[in-house]
């Protein structure tokens, strides 16, 4: 009986984390799908969002949930600027170039953060998140529920924006054929910048959500970049809605590893899973990804 309880608790943990992973990855997926840029600085956008929430809450006593839209705006602006002034110059050039440029950007962001805030790990203490929901034998921390809910909500919101709004149509048109899009009056440079801004904003909020329950430090980005890659590949490269599946798969795989193997191996499992999917199911676990 306890086996069943442990299993379900593990699955709950995994699903909740998976929702956050989906939010952490959807920005990467959107940017790659639209402009073909593989953003090596993705994790740093998450890290900056986390720090934004930390400082807003700690220094200015902004309500934790209110920091989310602020994080979105701050990181969104940063993302727009990065694409418009820097990354737009990498368009049409080989993959390695955008990878290297974004890697350079990540170096800059990490070390600016280190310079400003040192390498100390900082943990947020938010009073109303100190509670956990208790449902039968299962313990569900409130912070994680909120994080998952907001995360999934963002993914849904982004999908809606892409599918049903004018902006979304412009983005999709540019993604499919930017020359055609130009002919019908769309400015691809602006669209790419807006896309990156959206992706960065969402990633920033994901970072803020993560700050609710994990330590915040300048080096946290790399792991999230890798997780985001894993989620995107698992869900299908270029298929934005797939991040939900990818996030779920990763979250559950990690939770299972932590419960039944040991916590230190969760990264190993995540990366090996990523490798296996890349090699044997490159279109993702539900097969809707774009193949090279």
């Amino acid at each position, binding site marked *: 009986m306890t086996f069943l309880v442990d299993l379900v608790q593990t699955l709950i943990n995994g699903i909740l984390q998976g929702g956050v992973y989906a939010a952490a990855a959807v920005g990467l997926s959107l940017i*790659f799908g639209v402009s073909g840029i*593989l953003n090596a600085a993705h994790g740093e956008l998450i890290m900056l969002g986390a720090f934004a929430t930390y400082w807003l809450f700690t220094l200015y006593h902004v309500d934790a949930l209110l920091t989310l839209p602020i994080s979105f705006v701050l990181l969104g602006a940063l993302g727009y600027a990065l694409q418009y002034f*820097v990354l737009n*110059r*990498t368009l049409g050039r080989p*993959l*390695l*170039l955008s*990878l*290297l*440029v974004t*890697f*350079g*950007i*990540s*170096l*800059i962001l*990490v*070390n*600016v953060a*280190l*310079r400003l805030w040192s390498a100390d790990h900082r943990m947020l203490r938010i009073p109303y998140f100190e509670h956990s929901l208790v449902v039968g034998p299962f313990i569900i921390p409130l912070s994680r529920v909120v994080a998952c809910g907001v995360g999934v909500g963002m993914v849904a919101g982004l999908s809606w924006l892409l599918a049903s709004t004018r902006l979304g149509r412009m983005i999709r048109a540019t993604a499919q054929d930017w020359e055609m899009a130009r002919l019908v009056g769309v400015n691809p440079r602006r669209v790419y910048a807006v896309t990156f801004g959206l992706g960065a904003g969402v990633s920033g909020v994901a970072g803020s959500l993560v700050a609710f329950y994990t330590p915040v430090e300048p080096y946290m980005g*790399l792991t999230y970049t*890798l997780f985001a*890659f*894993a989620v995107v*590949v698992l869900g299908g*490269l270029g298929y934005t809605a797939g991040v939900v599946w990818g996030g779920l798969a990763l979250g559950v795989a990690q939770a299972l590893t932590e419960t039944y193997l*040991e916590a*230190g*191996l969760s*990264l*190993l499992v995540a*990366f*090996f899973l*990523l*490798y296996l999917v*890349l*090699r044997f199911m*490159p279109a993702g676990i539900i097969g809707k990804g774009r193949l*090279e």
Partner: protein
Amino acid sequence: MLRRWPTSTDWIALAVFAILLLLPLGIGAYPVRVATVIFMWAALAGSWNLLAGYAGAVDLGPVVYHGLGAFVTAALMLKVGLPFLVSAGLAGVVAMAVAFAVGTPTLRLRGAYFAIGTLALAESAKQLALAWDRLTPIPLTGGSAGISLPLSAGYLVFYYVMLALMGGVTAAALWLRHSKFGYGLRAVGENDRLAEASGVDIHRLKRRLYVGSAFVIALTGGTAGYWLSYINAMEAFNASVTFQMVVMTLLGGLGTPFGPVLGAAFLTLVSEFLGTRFVYHYLIAIGVIIVAISLFAPSGLAGIADLARRRRTQGAM
């Protein structure tokens, strides 16, 4: 057709190599140590340059063989009692076997998938190495504490080993410019589908290169480990090793035989003079340099040198 090889550049390279062979006689211990570090990075960056610059395959996981070389060398020296050079050589062979096994499935990936896949593998390897002693009965990696090696007698052996590795890789890069294997690799790098349609077995060619690089990379790992008398999984398998290889190659000139050497020398010297005192500033500066070079001077330092040489010959005409 002209008999192309060896060219005048090759003779200059040979002359420089001869000078480097004799260098330790004339300079002190500290410059020799700095030179050794440069040679190591030149060898590492040079191997990365072959797969990425010639064959167009961006490998983000070569550090695996660096770590593998370090730990296998240590194991052979400590547990089996073999001398350093033999251990390192054997570690290289082990790395080649692993590279063959890993390369066979992995090299079928292309573009972004290959980059992410190799990175994923490297991070998995790091986690595995960190957890190895806990999971298996064979104590091999010392977990996060690492392993100490016996102190080495002098520093010259490392100078010459790294010089040999750098020389070997650079010679290979020079030879590849005008050899059948080289043309095949460059064809793969320029347009792999077309290469395939022209009879090139792209998978086998890439794998051969991959396995060969693994040998060199493993040797740098084993040698560096013995030199520092200490290795740990976190550093030996760290992605920052890969990133430095990439940045040095890019700075120096991707796809050129001497680019990696120039990049390694430049970055090592800069970090020697700035690194320890202004770590964060230095890294921020490196980040800016990477962005600037990628966008505005993608041929790197070698490209600039090339440009200068061409301007001079044009001016003379």
